[in-house]
């Protein structure tokens, strides 16, 4: 038995290692996904879409029979929220007009952000417990490319495209342990690095690490993309600061709650092209 394992075990492990290394190298060298992975994506695409459609239908049926009392309360709360938002909108419109007048006065260039979106449906959520990756039903055919940002209908950042096939693509979400995004604290304009952490991934959170002190952060502070380096557009909302913690007592990190509800996402929008003038 031992001889057999020595004779064949090492051989099989060597074959497996060679395949693994080959796959890794090919994946690294390829700008799109590997041929076989692309092919498997195309083959599984109809089944995943069918499963997603069944799931969506069953969820909508379930929601229809939800407690009407709960819906009534939610409706009342939303009416209050709407009134607040309308008041803020009126103020914002007045501010916007004033802003335009002042810009003209100072001859400042107008700030604008032009995004080109491609709508897509999430057909598969996490397939393992070790990473946070979703599969979309849109790919190269919809001009989606590796590195494109994915946002919700409200504009909250979901993640980035890390793999793309003919009619499918994969998003690595903002909470994945491999994610690193140049970010900015909206209130203070402090530039930071937001990154996924495995211990926070299960709680749908990410962190801002290497903080010298905790005083510059307030719970509820908005964290947005910095746009530095030109990889991602600036100003996409990642989430809000939940708390500031420390491991060693000297170094602090802030825990961030993403505003995109990653567990309940159905439809998302991929930013396939953008122009930011600031």
């Amino acid at each position, binding site marked *: *038995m031992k001889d*057999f*394992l020595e004779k*064949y*075990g090492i051989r*099989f*492990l060597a*074959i*497996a*290692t060679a*395949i*693994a*290394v*080959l*796959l*890794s190298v090919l*994946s690294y060298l390829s700008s799109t996904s*590997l041929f*076989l*992975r692309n*092919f*498997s994506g195309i083959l*599984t695409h109809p*089944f995943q879409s069918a*499963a997603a459609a069944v*799931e969506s239908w069953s969820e909508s049926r379930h929601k229809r029979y939800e407690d009407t009392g709960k819906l009534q309360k939610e409706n009342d709360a939303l009416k209050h929220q709407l009134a607040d938002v309308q008041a803020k909108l009126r103020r914002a419109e007045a501010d916007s007009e004033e802003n335009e007048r002042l810009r003209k006065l100072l001859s400042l260039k107008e700030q604008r952000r032009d995004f080109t979106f491609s709508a897509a449906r999430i057909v*598969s*959520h*996490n*397939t*393992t*417990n*070790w*990473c946070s*990756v979703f599969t979309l039903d849109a790919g190269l055919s919809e001009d989606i490319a590796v590195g494109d940002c994915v946002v919700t209908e409200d504009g909250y950042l979901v993640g980035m495209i890390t*793999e793309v096939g003919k009619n499918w693509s*994969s998003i690595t979400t903002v909470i994945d*342990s*491999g994610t690193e995004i140049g970010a900015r604290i909206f209130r203070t304009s402090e530039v930071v690095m937001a990154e996924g*952490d*495995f*211990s926070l991934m*299960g709680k749908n959170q990410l962190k801002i690490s290497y903080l010298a002190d905790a005083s510059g952060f307030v719970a509820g502070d908005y964290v947005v993309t910095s746009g530095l380096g030109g990889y991602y557009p600036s100003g996409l909302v990642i989430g809000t600061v939940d708390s500031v913690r420390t491991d060693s007592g000297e170094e602090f990190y802030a825990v961030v709650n993403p505003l995109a509800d990653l567990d309940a996402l159905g439809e998302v929008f991929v930013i396939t092209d953008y122009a930011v003038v600031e």
Partner: protein
Amino acid sequence: MITKRDLAVKWTAYAIASLLLIVLHTFFLHDVHIWGVVPFLPPLLAGCIAATEPCKSAAIYAIFLGFFCDITISAPFFGLCTIALTAGALISFLLAAQVFPDTLIGHFLASASTLLVFSFFCCVTLLIKGQSLWPLLYMCLRELLISLLLFPFVYPVLLFVHKRTTL
């Protein structure tokens, strides 16, 4: 004497059974979180087969299964499933042959070993990427316990194929 035809029938049956289990798992359990984790099926398949089949066959099955997983699911690195499932199958085979009894319990423990080896590879990968050890170990434990809940569904199917195709 097992003919080439018998072997072909046997491994085609295993392939169909595995594919069926993976499809059922993907359709019905991919979004079921128990204790914060999704039960993970492939190591159980490799472990069950390593416990019942010869080493060479189990290793080849694990290589194919790993390769299939690598091209269909997202793991911490591309190629991890191939190497982790093959190593897991070999270790399970060794344990099943020399340590564990040739009973249901033994096969259960062999499957648990494959799951542990798979989790070990994931842990090492993420440790190298700078993640902390304790959350990874905690995930290993949870994934092991929750994935083993699938054993009562997976084992009878594979045992059925084994009994029907082995002389």
